[in-house]
């Protein structure tokens, strides 16, 4: 069977590799990242599958919540046997969305403003904004 990747898919792969500085093909799909991820149970799709979708240029990857749920705790990056910095790839995917002005958080929404009134540490608010708003 011949497997073809769409032009947009190729472009996505290239962009993610450029932004993250990682070689996406180093991943051999062992699944260690997914096994070790502390927030995997809140994700639509496990991290190793996300990497696979980027490898084959499947644009579906951008519709998953995985990279927004990622807390950038670096556990996957620390434990990957192929030294793929998965946290950087997640940042790459977040940036593909953000650079197309598709923010994850609406900082003007009532829901978000209410959070500011709660006693949540500023560090959490700033990191959420930095990860989810262009």
């Amino acid at each position, binding site marked *: 069977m011949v497997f073809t990747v769409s032009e947009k898919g190729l472009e996505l792969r290239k962009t993610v590799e*450029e*932004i*993250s*500085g990682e070689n996406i093909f180093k991943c051999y799909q062992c699944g260690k990242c997914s096994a070790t991820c*502390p*927030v995997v*149970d*809140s994700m639509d799709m496990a991290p190793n599958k996300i990497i696979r979708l980027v490898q084959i240029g499947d644009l579906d990857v951008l519709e998953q919540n995985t990279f*927004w*749920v990622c*807390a*950038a*705790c*670096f*556990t996957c*990056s*620390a434990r990957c046997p192929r030294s793929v*910095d998965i*946290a*950087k790839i997640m*940042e*790459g995917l977040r*940036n593909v969305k953000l650079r197309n002005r598709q923010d*994850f*958080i609406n900082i003007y929404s009532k829901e*978000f403003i209410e*959070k500011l009134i709660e*006693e*949540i*540490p*500023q*560090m*959490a*608010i*700033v*990191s*959420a904004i*930095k*990860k*989810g708003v262009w």
Partner: protein
Amino acid sequence: MVMDYPYYPGCTLKTTGKKDEEAALEVAKLLGFELKELPTWTCCGVVYNLTSDVMADHLSATRTLIRAQEMGRELNTNKLVTLCSMCYNVLKQVNLMYKNNPDKLKNVNLFMDTEEDYLGNIEILHFLEVLYNDIGPEKIREKVKTPLKGLKVDPYYGCMLLRPKTIAFDNQDAPHIMGDLLSALGATVIENPMTVECCGAHQIITNKNAVLSCVERIVTISQKKGSDVIVTPCPLCQYNLTTGQKALLEKGKINHMTPVIYLSELMRISLAENNENYLKDYSFIKDKLQERGGL
């Protein structure tokens, strides 16, 4: 000889993490040195930007490094101490990025032409490193006024002090520094395999359930191991573990709450000459110590 250190607090240490700062400044004095706050400072950036092509996100951390450079000249040191795990992580990663890429350092200096040039030689330290490497558990043991005899303590590190590997100051998978310091205070240290697991971090804003499941795993094991108190150096871990437990208790996922306090708070109780004042805020510690003959 122990010297004074330039100290960068960061936003959270002035608000929800105030207890940590108050206690740490006092602990430093009790151990014979001072943390001198930078006269002016800005946000550190909180999370290190992981992209390869964005420089603007590193500017706030760079400004902090320049402030440290200025103060370092007065105090004759190139060190900068942080109390917050995330400040430590981002400052150290940005600093390292400049060390590994002199071109980027040159660029940023050209860009920030209202500031003096950053020379790239500031050394970022976390307060724990100062306590462990510069003071040492032995010296701390000598200064203990109230041994925390019988208090079962679970040291919880979280992510930001140990990952990525390039910035870790302790063993990434089996860290021992906090445990050694707590043993020096006379406490019994519990080994929790979840000690380097993530607490869910900023997901508390957008995905509280993710945080709750992290907290549940960490706390359930800690409680099974019989800990009286969880000790952490990070203000966000402290917040997530505390509010997370409240929510879990309401849902009936756990049957009691384990107090989560800063390492500095526990150290102050143990090192202070007259700790009655402090102990009254921590009745659970007082009870345990009395119960097990520590007081």
